[in-house]
């Protein structure tokens, strides 16, 4: 069981949650209040959804040995686009048409951005970090262009359902995240697509020679990442009922990469673990929630994150493991010798 990639992430997640229990005995209790479930766990599950969606997309990108830095900007752009449609004054709550228009336009924009990134990486042959860096910078400019530099507040009631509504007593955003996750798992594990992605990540040239259309697989992965970030942007802007071109989804790309890496997918590409990513995202969100609930100043969050990144990376580094196990075996050997000598 300890060999499983999921083992350590789950241990970390459980211990973070248990630390909470220590400070707040009612941490795990879930109550029905106001016709829906409330409680810290529900809160974590609800708040994690944008990050979770983005991390799922990021997992597939990283599996192809790529990286998508533009997701934070896509979140901002998608939210800005939706706010552009439903944030205008004089939109009545009765008509659902603006809601669907907003969703269609936001998702459309996100897909377009994903297509752009994918085309740059797969067709022009630009390094993924660089290709997505362009939109990471320009994307925030575009988002501010859409919102005209203002923080647009959304008063349109139906839009709030996406990020703050409840369906069967559970936050609606959880259904969205679950649907995307199940879709991703089915597509990658029940069809050959997952294998193709891993193969392209492990060796693009060999995959091409083996008859895979590497370019299209890479393109598709970035489009999917854009889609996930777009949905994430919808949920985030709906949850806070506002679109902020400058700060929405700030550092999301870094958090998402962190979630993926914690989940056991290495940045070198190849094998990927969607379930690990989910746990990684949950770890990041619980960490944030814990830091707030225990009463540690929230500024510490970044330092803790830095330490977590470093530890996770060190554990994944073969060099570190080698040195570490050498120290352990050395200790064992000296112990044995110590017993044998007298």
């Amino acid at each position, binding site marked *: 069981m300890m060999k499983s990639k999921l083992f350590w992430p789950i241990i970390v997640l459980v211990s973070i949650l248990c630390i909470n229990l220590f400070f707040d005995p009612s941490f795990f209790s879930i109550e029905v209040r106001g016709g829906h479930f409330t409680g810290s766990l529900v809160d974590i599950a609800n708040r994690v959804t944008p990050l979770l969606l983005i991390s799922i997309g990021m997992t597939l990108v990283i599996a192809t040995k790529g990286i998508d830095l533009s997701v934070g900007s896509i979140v901002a752009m998608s939210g800005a686009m939706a706010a552009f449609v439903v944030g205008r004054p004089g939109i009545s709550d009765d008509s659902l048409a603006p809601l669907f228009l907003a969703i269609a336009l936001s998702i459309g924009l996100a897909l377009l951005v994903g297509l752009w990134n994918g085309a740059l990486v797969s067709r022009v042959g630009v390094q993924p*970090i660089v290709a997505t860096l362009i939109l990471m910078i320009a994307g925030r400019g575009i988002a501010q262009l859409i919102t005209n530099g203002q923080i647009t507040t959304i008063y349109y009631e139906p839009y709030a359902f996406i990020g703050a509504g409840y369906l069967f007593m559970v936050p609606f955003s959880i259904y969205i995240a679950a649907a995307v996750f199940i879709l991703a798992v089915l597509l990658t594990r029940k069809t050959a697509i997952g294998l193709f992605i891993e193969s392209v990540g492990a060796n693009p040239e060999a995959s091409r020679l083996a008859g895979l259309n590497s370019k299209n697989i890479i393109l598709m992965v970035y489009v999917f990442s854009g889609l996930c970030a777009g949905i994430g942007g919808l949920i985030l802007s709906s949850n806070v009922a506002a679109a902020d071109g400058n700060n929405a989804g700030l550092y999301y790309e870094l958090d998402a990469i962190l979630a993926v890496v914690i989940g056991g997918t290495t940045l070198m590409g190849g094998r990927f673990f969607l379930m690990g990513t989910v746990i990684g995202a949950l770890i990041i969100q619980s960490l944030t929630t814990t830091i707030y609930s225990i009463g540690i100043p929230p500024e510490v969050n970044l330092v803790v994150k830095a330490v977590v990144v470093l530890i996770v990376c060190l554990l994944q580094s073969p060099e570190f493991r080698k040195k570490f196990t050498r120290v352990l075996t050395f200790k064992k050997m000296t112990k044995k010798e110590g017993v044998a000598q007298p």
Partner: protein
Amino acid sequence: MKSLKLKSQHVPVMVTLILFLTMFAFGALRYDNFFSTQVFLNLFVNNAFLIIAAVGMTFVIISGGIDLSVGSVIALTSMVAASLLQDGQFSALTVIPISLLVGTTLGFIMGCVIHFFNLQPFIVTLAGLFLARGLAYLVSIETISINNPFFSYMASARIPILDGFISISVIISLIVVALGIFIAKSTKFGRNIYAIGGNEQSAVLMGLPVGRTKILIYTLSGFCASLAGLVFTFYMLSGYALHANGLELDVIAAVVIGGTLLTGGMGYVAGSVFGVLILGIIQTIIVFEGTLSSWWTKIAVGVLLLAFIVFQRVFITLSENKNTIKPSGTNEQEALKLKSGVKPGTTAGRG
């Protein structure tokens, strides 16, 4: 023949230079008062810290790595300096070396982690970004304004040049640039950086001190970031944990626009300076235009980045093609050839 080869090496930097001159000419033609010494000198005055950070970043990128932590290190340095000056009441003479040590130490640690555990620079410096920003917040959440006489002097001193003026920070930044060019051109360390960026495996096989060089590169970048932080503190006269948020992107953009290949192995310190000046001139034009909002800067930088990256791709493909016809070439072409020919078989990530 030799002069022709030199030209092909310098093409990216020449393009940057021409772009800068074109933009300046565009501004001069379009707006009154644009064509003045002071507008030009202000590009240096306002971006001195960016120039210093870009010098460090240039070395990192030439070696094939990346340093995401510079923005946070600038914030941390400004925070440490401000806190020591105001809350600790230390003299500027003690504060400045301590502040410079902050980034240098962090850079050294990151370099060690990258080298000894063979981790990707991207993820290690990402941890550095979080750590430095978090530490800056830990020092204080509030803005600390500085009223130390030395710092105020550095902020307000004006050195007249022609009919304009520059600040002391500009002089510091120009010294850093000169040192950077010297290191890149005339030291073993500098040549090693190019060799590592060209092809790390061949650098190892050639017996170059790859590990030491790599650690030094990140230490140097950390030092530059800290110095940039100090200059930034002179400029702002305050410490604030949110200072220089996202600045690492500007620095990377400036280096790329300056003609340094993000794949490593090729680039010039002087090019990065022009990269920074181009970012500066975009902002100046937007200010002069008056009606354009600030976010156009980001869009313009994005478009420029795109143009340069595509240009680099074309440039690499062209020189690779040239190589297949004519095997003999300069060091840099050799490195490119090695890069395209010998692909290290990576099966990592499968274990």
